[in-house]
Each structure stands twice: as C-alpha cells, then as structure tokens.
C-alpha cells in the first residue's frame, strides 16, 4: 500500500486526492460526478453514507454517495451548487482533482428491511442519497414485499434521474410515483405534495419499512403522514443534514440534540428524533 493511502487511513482528517472521471449535468444546478482515487482502492460504502469533499483552496462539505454500492471501480456523488464550495464541486471538470474523506456515517437499513414492504420517499435532491439504497434493494427485489419509490420535486425540469425513474417503474413489482409542486400543462403527472402519493399506492403499513430523504419540512410532513397511515415510527428512517467540520464525531458542529449527525447519522430512526424535529432551535 502506498504511503499516501496509509496516511489517509491513519488520519481521517486528511483528504485523499480523487480524480473526476466523468460529469453528468442533471439539471441547471445539479451535477453527478464519478470519482476514482489517485492512490489506493475505492473504499466500500454503505447506502446512506457520505464523504467530505474538499474543493482545493475553497472548502470542504459533506456530500452523500449517490452511486451503486456494488460498483467497485468508482464513487459517485450528486451535488447541487448552492454556495462557493458546492458550486466548485458541481462545476469540476473531468480530469480535475478533488479531496475526499470518508465514507462516514450510518446507513439505510436496506438488508434489514428484507421481508417487508419497502417505501423509499425522496424530495428534491434527496433522491441522490437514496439512490444507492434503491440500487441495493432492486438488486435483491425478490427479498422484499412491494417496493415503492415516491419522489417529489419543485418542477419537472428539476427532477433528478428521470430516465432511471422510468426504468425502475417499468420493472414488475416496483411502483414509482413522482409529483411536483408546480408544472405547466405539458406535464401529465401528479402535481401536489409528496405525502399525497402515499394515499395512492398499495402497501401494508404494519409490515413496511420507510426510508426518507429530503428537505426537513418535507421529512416532517411525510413522516407524520406515514405514521398516520399506520407505519410504526421505529420503521421510519430519515437522513438528516447538519453543518459539519470534522465528520468523525470530534468537533460537535453537527450536533442534533443527543446525536452527532456525522457519527450517529445521517440516517436516524424517526422514533429517536421525532420530538427534536419539532423543536425550532436545534
């Protein structure tokens, strides 16, 4: 093993250099990057985990893995440009180099959901952190009851992975339902909020595991709607976002009540965090 890889292992605070192998523009401000390490192997990751990505000289931000956990050749991220760092990452050209730490954090309990109906519910960019879980579930779909993917976005032009959504929905036993907040009349799909999609699909609430990722308001409403439909809070999992610095449970930047999102999360069980979701100051 090279010295650089050694150091990266020894010091989780030191970003390792990765090369941008390919870039796909998903929407006006979202890009998907395939990355390969300049030294060492591609680390294994579990769906739901994130990397700290360093745009050299600009800054470092947490970004979830959005690629296939079964692909050993690269790590894929989907980034929306909202500020200086995320813009630098989203604008990175093929061939350029970014620093990576991780993957860090907790995972979607996909394997543990075997034998249940699986509801995967995403809002906006939240489909990206859920995509690895979708790949994993679809690769073993015979182990689940029904699998439904519910996705809400702002407008049709801002939806991610539209071709893949269509392909997933064409598979037997997989339901894909997409809704947007606003559309023009050329859109013939759903218009409305994500929780409304829950009423339209068939599943067995008492035997369902739900994975949710999206803006926090959407998580709150959707988790409440699931509970209302009879899904137990301990079978609802949410991915939370908090500002991060160390990403290894040292600095306390990402504190969310009793949890550090970088270490105990980002995927957290709803029954554990529900009371905190309603508190405005956390």
């Amino acid at each position, binding site marked *: 093993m090279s010295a650089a890889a050694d150091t990266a292992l020894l010091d989780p605070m030191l970003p390792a250099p990765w090369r941008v192998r390919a870039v796909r523009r998903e929407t006006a401000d979202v890009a998907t990057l395939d990355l390969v390490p300049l030294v060492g192997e591609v680390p294994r990751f579990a769906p739901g985990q994130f990397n700290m990505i360093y745009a050299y000289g600009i800054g470092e931000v947490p970004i979830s893995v959005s690629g296939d956990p079964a692909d050993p050749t690269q790590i894929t991220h989907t980034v929306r440009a*909202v500020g200086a760092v995320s813009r630098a990452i989203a604008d990175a050209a093929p061939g350029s180099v970014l620093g990576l730490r991780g993957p860090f954090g907790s995972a979607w309990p996909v394997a543990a959901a075997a034998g249940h109906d699986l509801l995967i519910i995403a809002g906006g960019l939240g489909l990206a952190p859920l995509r690895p879980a979708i790949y994993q579930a679809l690769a073993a779909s015979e182990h689940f009851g029904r699998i439904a993917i519910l996705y809400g976005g*702002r407008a049709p032009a801002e939806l991610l992975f539209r071709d893949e959504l269509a392909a997933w929905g064409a598979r037997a036993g997989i339901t894909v339902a997409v809704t947007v*907040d606003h559309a023009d*009349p050329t859109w013939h*799909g*759903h*218009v409305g909020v994500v929780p409304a999609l829950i009423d339209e699909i068939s599943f067995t609430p008492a035997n369902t595991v739900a994975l949710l990722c*999206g803006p926090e*308001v959407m998580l709150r409403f959707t988790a409440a709607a699931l509970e209302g439909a009879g899904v137990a809070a301990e079978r609802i999992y949410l991915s939370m976002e908090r500002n991060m610095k160390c990403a290894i449970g040292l600095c306390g930047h990402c504190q969310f009540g009793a949890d550090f999102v970088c270490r105990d999360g980002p995927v957290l069980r709803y029954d554990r965090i529900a009371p905190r979701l309603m508190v405005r100051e956390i």
Partner: protein
Amino acid sequence: METLEHLLLAHPFFAGVDPAFGPLLAGCARNLRFAPGAYLFREGEAADEFYLIREGRVALELHAPARSPIVIASLGGGEMVGASWLAPPYRWGFDARATADTRAFGLDAKCLRGKCDADPHLGYEMMRRILPVMVRRMQAARRQMLDVYGHPSA
C-alpha cells in the same frame, strides 16, 4: 347488476355513509367520461356540478394573462373535484382538465344543495366529507407555497 346508486356509495368519498341516503344522492348523480385533454369545467363558469373521480387524473390549472398556465394540483381516483358549488357565487375559480382517460360521477350541485337544505342530516354528512378534503388541500397548498425544494438563498 351494479346500479348507479351502488357504484356511487362504493366511492371512497361516501365511505360509511348511511345507505338510506343512496337514492337521494343517486338522484342527483350521473356517470361521466372525459377523454384526455377534455375540460370538466373552466374558470368563471357556473359551478353547477361537482365531480367524484372514479379513475383517471384531473389537473387543476390557473391561467394568468401573458403567462403560461400552471397546474396547481392534480387529482386521481377516489378524489373530489371542486368546492365552488358550495359557496356563492357558485363559480369555478380554476380550470379542471382530464390528463388521462377519466371516469367520474357528476353530482348536480343545485339538486344536492336543495336536498342538503331540506335534510340537515344529509347536509351534515356531506360537510363531514368535504371539510377534511378542503383542510387537507389547503395544508398541501400552503406546503407547496413553502417551496421546500427551492434554493434556500434564492
């Protein structure tokens, strides 16, 4: 054979309704079909019939001059379309257009309003069904207004 009355009472909107109201309700109802693109109603028209979708999809559209129309909500099987028939001046506030082959019950608004006035028990049954739908839609509209997926800084 399934009569209009049976089919109507089997619609989720009427779940749990006293079957004794069946003939009254069916007396105001008819079976309708809308091809994709057909309008159930348009903004400004008299709201003299409201709809319970059996299957299909209906988009609610708002038009503003010099802007392309926007779809503010879409409704599917099991849902009610329109509430303007309940409140004066009984005019639609938006367009409703089928975006898929749609089958629905049309309920004559004047007929139903008359029966509800004459029988407050029926009126209450109707309000108990309509009010939760309206509250749910209002909350959903407010959440759409939040624009949760938009840029936080924009």
